């Protein structure tokens, strides 16, 4: 069976792995690299639970082959915390109770991180548009929006370098 050697930088750490071409990026992240923070929800490109940043852009990692990402930078939810300090987006979800069951949360947070990198002060409408590919069946989104607004405020008040993250563009 064909196996392809690939190199991925995930959360700042370089990995050399061999994968079958048909292996999805999310399976590589979870089953090969053992980073299980990234969830598999629908597996049909609908729910966004598997969202990771690939070269800085949020994508559904169930709809990318791992071989496609060869040489690329991936950021998963495990890469958000720094030195025991939650990322402002994580802190926002904690403070504003932006979750109930928590299944969509890692993907939701990765989309939020990407949004706030591009737009430091998004309107509620911009937030709702940005997360429209991430489905939450519990919260009704109200507290998720509040959590992202909390993070935006926090990040604007903080020195940018302090919230810089690996795996971005």
């Amino acid at each position, binding site marked *: *069976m*064909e196996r*392809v050697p690939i190199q991925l930088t995930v959360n700042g750490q370089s990995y050399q792995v061999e994968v*079958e*071409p*048909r*292996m*999805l990026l999310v*399976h590589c992240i979870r089953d090969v690299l053992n980073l299980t923070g990234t969830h598999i929800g629908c*597996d*049909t*490109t*609908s729910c*966004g639970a598997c*969202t990771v940043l690939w070269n800085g*852009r*949020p*994508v*559904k990692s169930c*709809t*990318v*082959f791992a*071989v*496609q990402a*060869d040489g690329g930078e991936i950021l998963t939810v495990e890469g958000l915390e720094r030195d025991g300090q939650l990322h402002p987006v994580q802190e926002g979800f904690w403070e504003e109770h932006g979750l109930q069951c928590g299944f969509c949360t890692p993907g939701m947070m990765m*989309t939020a991180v990407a949004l706030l990198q591009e737009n430091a002060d998004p309107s509620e409408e911009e937030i709702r*548009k*940005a997360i*429209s*590919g*991430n489905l939450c069946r519990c919260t009704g989104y109200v507290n998720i929006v509040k959590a992202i607004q909390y993070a935006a405020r926090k990040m604007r008040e903080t020195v940018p370098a302090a919230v810089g993250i690996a795996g971005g563009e």
Partner: protein
Amino acid sequence: MIPGPFSYRRATSIEEAIALLQQYGGDAKVLSGGQSLIPMMKFRLAEPAVIVDINRVPGLDTIEERNGLLSIGGLVRETTLERSPLIRQRYPIIADTAEVIADPLVRNLATVGGNLAHGDPANDHPATMLALRAEVVARGPSGERVISIDDFFVDTFTTALAPDEILTEIRVPAPPPRSGGAYMKFERKVGDYAVAAAAAFLALDEARKIVRAGIGLTNVSYKPLRAEAAENALLGQAPSDELFRAAAELAAQAADPTSDLRGPAEYKRAVARTMTFRALQKALSRAQAA
């Protein structure tokens, strides 16, 4: 779900990609954004033996106007398209279309070329490109050929592209004076395919009569549909709601939807009528502002 096994070939030039397609013929599939192909492979609706990844082929991701034409590279991502100042200012109908495709995460990877080359009548760009009378550029072993959008869509999931050809570029005529277009999509929820959608493009002469009309319909037939009778009814006329209602009725009559989970055929026909009417209204307001 895990797709069937395949061999992976990454092309680094268009020549290499075409050579790979020549080598593997009908067993190969081009991987662009992958946002339709990979889901189809998971369901085993597509089981290509070879995947030719063109994502690292340079030169296919530019958006520019030259010689009276807008040129969109086949690998331009939907996100890039919807954010492009050139597209937003000069071709708002294309921005309308890009920003209602799937969801923002899918649009970060999905490409314009893929949206057309997939040949899915539920995809959104085909109707807009029909309304704009675009041309598709295909590269193959014997070079480049230009295909009229009217000849491009052959059947459901079937286009005029040969197995060893790649869609490299879409060409759209630059907008004439006093022209405008709009895309109106009705969907059950964010990210869904259209129940029905309509693209409309209008150009007015100095006397404010309609001199160019384009209407394309999404997901109401076995392939993307041009509403030709509706277009002809508009030509030479002064725009009015009454005229637009008559044209929308002709567009609805041209639609041939099938009943499914998105609704019965008659409902979809009614949605096509309403979307056509609204797209014409918005196209007119843009033409008047231009």
